[in-house]
């Protein structure tokens, strides 16, 4: 049994390390962070994407010029840049509003996903009864139900958060449930052998096992929560408290201002990246604390 335990713990450590490494490819690990490695990191990790970005923007600009693409179809990068600078106040406020809604929806998904997954892991009957519907609900088109959510919840922030939540909760449920059930058989037997209580089994074995899965779920959900918030803003908005990115996107589309639309899309992308980065940092901490 001791040998089993050792082997399984080692296996889990390896898996967790892999997960951490996978998730932190953009950042140097803490050990061995010297000036030469920093320089190497910049050369190997920061320079290539910058070159790619420069090539992309250059190609985009050249294509617009060469084929004389009208600005209502594809604006030039400089036109988008101009909008980003001229409307920065509006865009930053919108970014912040949409970001708040996305994070709120994501936090609710984390909570709800975990609670449901714990319930599913404790009762096979419950899991068999409801898990198929969780998967089924995942496929409901959000644009169809977003207007309904608005009607049920009323106009305002809560509607936007609700759409972000609905879109991001199912990956959480699916991943955490899978994680709770992924306990290695030898470890389960070990816990049984020592007469562990159900609570001990849950908190000391199932939950730590599920952490890497939860982290994966969160990363999937982080992007979905941003998309959800933007879709929510298509239908809800915030009334008098300001405009979110979704509102700005629709506004630009309705007035044929494609450069403004691109600017809002750039901000939406930056929001997705920011939320993902937050989750990555948080998950590294969580993996060290619980999952390692």
């Amino acid at each position: 049994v001791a040998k089993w335990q050792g082997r399984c713990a080692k296996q889990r450590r390896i898996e967790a390390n892999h997960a951490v490494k996978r998730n932190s490819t953009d950042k140097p690990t803490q050990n061995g962070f010297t000036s030469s490695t920093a320089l190497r990191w910049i050369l190997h990790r920061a320079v290539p994407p910058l070159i790619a970005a420069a090539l992309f923007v250059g190609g985009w600009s050249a294509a617009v010029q060469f084929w004389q693409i009208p600005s209502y179809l594809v604006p030039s990068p400089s036109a988008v840049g101009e909008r980003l600078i001229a409307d920065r106040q509006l865009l930053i406020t919108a970014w912040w509003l949409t970001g708040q809604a996305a994070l709120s929806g994501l936090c609710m998904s984390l909570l709800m996903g975990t609670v449901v997954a714990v319930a599913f892991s404790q009762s096979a009957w419950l899991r068999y009864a409801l898990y198929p519907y969780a998967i089924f609900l995942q496929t409901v088109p959000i644009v169809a139900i977003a207007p309904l959510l608005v009607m049920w919840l009323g106009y305002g922030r809560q509607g936007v958060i609700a759409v972000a939540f609905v879109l991001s909760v199912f990956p959480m449920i699916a991943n955490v449930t899978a994680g709770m059930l992924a306990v290695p058989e030898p470890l389960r037997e070990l816990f049984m052998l020592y007469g562990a209580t159900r609570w001990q089994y849950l908190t000391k074995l199932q939950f730590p096992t599920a952490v890497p899965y939860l982290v994966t779920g969160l990363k999937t959900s982080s992007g979905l929560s941003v998309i959800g918030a933007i879709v929510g803003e298509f239908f809800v908005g915030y009334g008098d408290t300001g405009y979110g990115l979704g509102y700005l996107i629709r506004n630009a589309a309705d007035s044929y201002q494609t450069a403004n639309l691109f600017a809002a899309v750039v901000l939406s992308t930056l929001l997705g990246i920011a939320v993902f980065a937050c989750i990555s940092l948080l998950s590294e901490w969580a993996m060290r604390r619980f999952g390692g």
Partner: protein
Amino acid sequence: LSTVKTPLEPADDAGTTSVQLALNWYPDAQHGGFFAADELGIYAKRNLRVKILPGQPAVPVLQNVAMKRVEFGVANADQVLMARAQGMPVVAVFAAMQTSPRCIMVHRESGISSLRDLKDITLSLGAGKGFATFLEKGGYLSRVKVVPYTGSVAPFMVDKSFAQQAYVFSEPLVVRNEGADPVTLLVSELGFDPYTSCLITHEDTIRTRPELVRAMVQATQVGWTTYFKDAAKTHERILRENKQMDLASLNFGQEALRTLCLPPDTPHDTIGRMDATRWETLAKQLVELGLIDDASAWQSAFDLRFLAVDPQP
């Protein structure tokens, strides 16, 4: 759009020219004249085979005309000016509605009877639309909560303090049938009155195929005149094209459109006509509202040469 055929297709063997007309909304009474011209063979008589493409919210009509994916489209005058400001070479050649049907629809229970006393309501408006910006910049919306418009009247039905944008001949009847008591407040009364349901086409089409544009415009004129005389067959056609529509709504729409298309207080010998000064006024308004940068090119946005004073079938 991949199914759309090659634009500006030349006349086929029988001398018939096939063109596409993209609508700006679901088939409705506001497109009555276009459907009448097609259904009653008025287009065919001028050797036109017109394929009418139904619209929906956010359908890119102006873009499709600008890219020559379709030869003709239906759009409003303010949209034409805004699209031209973004580089789309689109031109209005016919204006169905002389008075804009655009209104704000409120519940009678709200006690609101004028756009000047809009307050304590949630108002759903299309973001970026000319009239919405006009109301906002004019200070009419300072005491209301503005939310996006989704194209549905459902939120209006569940909340007495809810108001929404509407066309006077359309949504008010829908909600009345559902049991609501709406009051409509016309935006045109405040001085923002763009020509509505204009027939638009591409500058190149006007330059290279003026006869096609003339045939299309004059047949459309006859279509609208005929629509107001007898709409029975046309309404049957619209009902086939739009399963959500019902005959009572269409009949109501037709009656309301008669005054919007042929206003009683002006000489209305020519349906579809446009007045240059109104285009100029509108362009200046859009500049004031910050929706376009420059009003100087307003004359290029419309073309009166194709309208017949007394169109003959």
